[in-house]
């Protein structure tokens, strides 16, 4: 058995995934890794954090620029391009593995479920929510001038980016129940109850 456990939480945009993740982490008294991963990766490699941010899951290019999606024709074979999306992803994966080796934790997104797929102390969770609730949430949290229709297109856009990032790097299908241990709808259960369920399942399964 691995020394440390980890809970990987994938989430649709504005489905409360991050809130639920922090509740889970608080109850289990472990750390949540989200964007901090980028900082970790940059510290490990000596690369500036900015590059990891640019290649991050919500920055996928669209339209014409997606033609040149891998920002470089990186793998021409003679030379490695250290700034290609692929190599940045690999460095980020190293950071994920390193954290998993040293502590119990909760990962949000960044394909951690795929990177750690060999681990035997892993719980994969996906959080979704009803579209109405997500739109509401965007409108409540956004600045003035956010209309429901704008919110809807923002949600679709972010979901599309997360999904193409995840599918590209993992070869799995983002949000497909086949790749998760539990999928929860936060509109049905509420954040508290979702967190409760994840914690109790984690205790049962991961031997905490």
């Amino acid at each position: 058995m691995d020394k440390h456990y980890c809970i990987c939480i994938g989430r649709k945009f504005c489905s409360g995934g991050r809130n639920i993740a922090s509740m889970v982490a608080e109850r289990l008294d472990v750390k949540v890794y989200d964007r901090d991963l980028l900082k970790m990766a940059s510290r490990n490699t000596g690369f500036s954090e900015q590059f990891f941010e640019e290649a991050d899951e919500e920055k996928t290019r669209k339209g014409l620029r997606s033609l040149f999606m891998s920002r470089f024709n990186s793998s021409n074979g003679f030379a490695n391009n250290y700034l290609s999306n692929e190599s940045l992803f690999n460095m980020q994966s190293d950071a994920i593995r390193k954290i998993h080796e040293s502590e119990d934790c909760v990962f949000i997104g960044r394909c951690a479920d795929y990177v750690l797929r060999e681990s035997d102390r892993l719980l994969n969770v996906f959080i979704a929510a009803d579209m109405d609730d997500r739109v509401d949430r965007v409108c409540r949290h956004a600045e003035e001038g956010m209309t429901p229709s704008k919110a809807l297109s923002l949600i679709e856009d972010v979901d599309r980016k997360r999904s193409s990032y995840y599918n590209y790097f993992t070869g799995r299908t983002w949000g497909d129940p086949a790749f998760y241990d539990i999928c929860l709808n936060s509109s049905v259960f509420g954040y508290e109850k979702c967190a409760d369920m994840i914690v109790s399942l984690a205790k049962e399964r991961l031997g905490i």
Partner: protein
Amino acid sequence: MAELKTPQELGTDRIGKLLIRYAVPAMIAMLASSLYNIVDRAFIGHGVGSMALSGLAVTFPLMNLSAALGSMVGVGSGTMISLKLGQKDHESAQMLLGNSVTLNILIGVIFGALSLIFINPILTLFGATDVTIGYAREYMVIILAGNAFTHLYLGINCILRAAGHPNKAMIATIGTVLLNTFLDYLFIMVFHWGIKGAAIATVISQVLAFTWQCFQLSDKSELIHLRRGTYRLRGDLVRNMLTIGLSPCLMNAAACFVVLLINRGLLKYGSDVAIGAYSIINSIGFMIVMMVMGFNQAMQPIAGYNYGARQFSRVLRVLYLTMFFGTCVTTLGFVIAEFMPDLCIRIFTNDPELTAIARNGMKINFIVFPLIGSQMVIGNFFQSIGMPGKSILMSLSRQVLLLIPFLIILPRFYGINGIWYSLPASDILSVVLGFSLLIPQVRKLKKLS
């Protein structure tokens, strides 16, 4: 390459030492692939004749197009496989290998069949005339029949490199060149099979290289090997491979369109012989360009790593050094072309008419070559520091965007010389463009360092 490390040496070792060490293998591979062209053309020029050389030249856009499609699958699968190997996801890497084989066969056969059906109109479009089309067709029919093998051979070579066997890939490349040279000699000089002999030699050497590759990849102890059950195409894998490979494919296709324009221009304002002359000039130019590309490939990891690590003074140093080496190489090309053009031309032909046209074209074409070295380095530099937009603009500008208007306008005033003038004219403009993009960038880097 399978294991992606961030070697500290890139951030600490002497730049000059690093550059040379990375450049030597890249240059050998680049030279080998440009030698292939030269050898084929040399045997055909001497063994068959000037018209056969022109016939061969009109097939080049078609060959390039086929290579562009092959590189689409090759680059795409190579990138994906090295990503998967980096994640120790051998199962997916295996699937990618199988899928890329199927995809190569599919694209190779379809492209080959379509081109065979429309062979006459295609060759005429590319500048074939009554005199040359016979040679072009004789050559192309055999090449197209073996098209799937060409794609397989090139595709698997990309994968061998991505899977951490750059040496095996190099052996395949060099082996193909040597074998092709030997068979060219045998078929053309000894058996007198004519231009057909060159095509047969090409196909045989690629089939043998592919067989050798399969042998290498069927070793079960290898991380990835050919295996049953991986050949059925999977939509998501195919889509990813093609998306990644699309941009290099489009660049190659654009270059092929330009060769088409040049061939037709030469035919309109000159003759069949001029097309052959251009193919001689092109072979020599290509070899010089390939040597610069070797340095470029060596620069990429060094510049990329140090840019990522915010060691901007090292980034600038590797840029300057590569520009210096690039300029040395292109200046060498300039000296040879301007002062001893006949030396190069004699490799391909003894025909006095062809020699005269090629000599004239060569002197014009290479006149600004010393400047070109830095232009090519600048384009690649942008790519290695994460600005692919500028990099693509740079390489399209010289070979496509700036060249096409010149190719259309200049011949109206200067006839055939107008076509020769177009090449250096667009070279000069693209050098200006390159430096105007580079100078602000260098200022920014200097401020940061």
